[in-house]
């Protein structure tokens, strides 16, 4: 898209590249306030983008956790014997999209239930003899939680299966909520990334507009387009990367603090934030990538129209 070719002469000498790099870095100093404005605008927009990226990734992660807790409970009919149960297990294993099948015999189910009651369990001791209260059952987890309703329907058709329960409408509502949250997150991030690009490109454009005359002079004394372009290319790159490094550092330290305080105060099984690694690297990588891209893109696009002298 943006070809940095060496026009009108043979391949650029390495020494000349060195000159362009030096010149590009020098320009950052020479432009003082303009450079500062551009770096700050990259910093602020990428910081906001980074915060929302972290937020969206964590909301997604929490939604995943909540969805992972959805499971199908299929009771076995009371009259089924052991070989029926074994057949059913095999049939279940053949259903596609199932991640895990666990058989919970009636006794174990009741014990787990009683254990969950704690002290009050003693009032329900007689349930241990009552197979109708809590029959044998299969607890099934699907590979993709969103497939749960479909798979539950398939399981219902199998022989020896009594009732199938997966939370029904509650689960479907949960899925629609988590899906909405994810989509809003994605739209928000894309919108924000786009705004960031425009804002930063605009700042860079203003800084380069101020140098329109310079570019024209360079062309008039015989500089080729690539000779003019290279230092701007380097300048944009450095500007974008420096502008991204600072928000990346702020986000990493801030997120570290957040993780510490959350782990001390909120203890909900599904409320697990994403761990520091590899998230910290991913975020830094994304921000620096965007910064570098926007820096280069902004400067190359902006000088393009001044080169026609």
């Amino acid at each position, binding site marked *: 898209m943006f070809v940095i070719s060496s*026009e*009108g*002469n043979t391949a*650029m*000498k390495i*020494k*000349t590249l060195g*000159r362009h790099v030096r010149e590009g870095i020098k*320009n950052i100093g*020479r*432009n003082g306030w303009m450079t500062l404005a551009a770096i700050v605008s990259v910093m602020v927009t990428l910081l906001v983008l980074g915060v929302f990226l972290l937020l969206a990734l964590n909301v997604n992660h929490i939604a995943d956790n909540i969805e992972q807790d959805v499971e199908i409970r299929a009771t076995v009919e009371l009259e089924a014997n052991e070989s029926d149960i074994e057949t059913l297990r095999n049939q279940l294993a053949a259903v596609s999209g199932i991640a895990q099948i666990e058989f919970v015999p009636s006794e174990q189910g009741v014990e787990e239930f009683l254990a969950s009651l704690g002290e009050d369990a003693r009032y329900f001791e007689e349930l241990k003899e009552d197979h109708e209260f809590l029959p044998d059952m299969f607890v099934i987890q699907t590979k993709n939680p969103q497939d749960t309703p479909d798979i539950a329907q398939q399981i219902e058709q199998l022989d020896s299966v009594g009732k199938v329960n997966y939370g029904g409408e509650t689960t479907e509502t949960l899925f629609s909520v988590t899906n909405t949250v994810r989509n809003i997150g994605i739209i928000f991030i894309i919108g924000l990334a786009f705004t960031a690009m425009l804002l930063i490109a605009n700042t860079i454009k203003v800084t380069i507009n101020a140098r329109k*005359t*310079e570019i024209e*002079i*360079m*062309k*008039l*004394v*015989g*500089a*080729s*387009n690539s*000779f003019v372009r290279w230092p701007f290319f380097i300048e944009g790159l450095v500007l974008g990367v420096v502008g991204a490094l600072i928000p990346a550092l702020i986000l990493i330290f801030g997120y570290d603090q957040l993780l510490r305080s959350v782990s001390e105060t909120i203890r909900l099984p599904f409320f697990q934030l994403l761990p520091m690694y590899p998230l910290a690297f991913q975020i830094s990588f994304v921000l620096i990538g965007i910064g570098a891209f926007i820096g280069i893109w902004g400067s190359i696009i902006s000088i393009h129209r001044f080169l*026609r*002298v």
Partner: protein
Amino acid sequence: MPMIRMRGVYKTYANGVHALKNVSVDIEPGEFVYVVGPSGAGKTTFIKLMYSEERPSKGEVHVNSINLSDLKNRDKPKLRRSLGVVFQDFKLLPRLTAFENVAFAMEVTEKPKREIKKRVMEVLDLVRLKQKARSYPHELSGGEQQRISIARALVNKPGLVIADEPTGNLDPDTSWGIMELFETINHLGTTIVMATHNKDIVNNMKKRVIAMEHGEIVRDQLRGEYGYED
């Protein structure tokens, strides 16, 4: 082939102004030519055609044996390195020192650093501003800035230097200094084409004078005079 040859050159701008009409001229190596005429006569367009800031609408322009009528954008740098241009407003890069400004015109040719340094000091010496090498343009007087821009025009040892009203922003005394400098450069063998409004200088120098009016050459004299009242 002369250094500059124009044949039947017309230039019409996008806004409909006919800046040049049927201009034909030959300028030989080593000549010193003044281009005179009232404002709007087409002097600047005539000059701009020579370093390809403008393209002729019709006709042929050859400079240093390069045909500018169909010169591609990517070939313009080569032309501009083969000649020097001096502007009324100096056109120095404001963020570079005097030395760096002169060096820039040579850096674009990708010459070795040591050679650039040596040659830049040479031309700064020629314009007698060696001691201001580290100064920035805003720290220099108008005359000094113009000397730096002349040094820049000379750094690549061009056979041709083109100047568009080089003394237009300078007081009479300073203008004389600049003119003497051009005289020296011409004596060293460089062809000079200069558009000017400076009557005294033209009348005193007795060089070739090309007078333009309404986009046409109306007079072309060896050892000519300015010929207009101020």
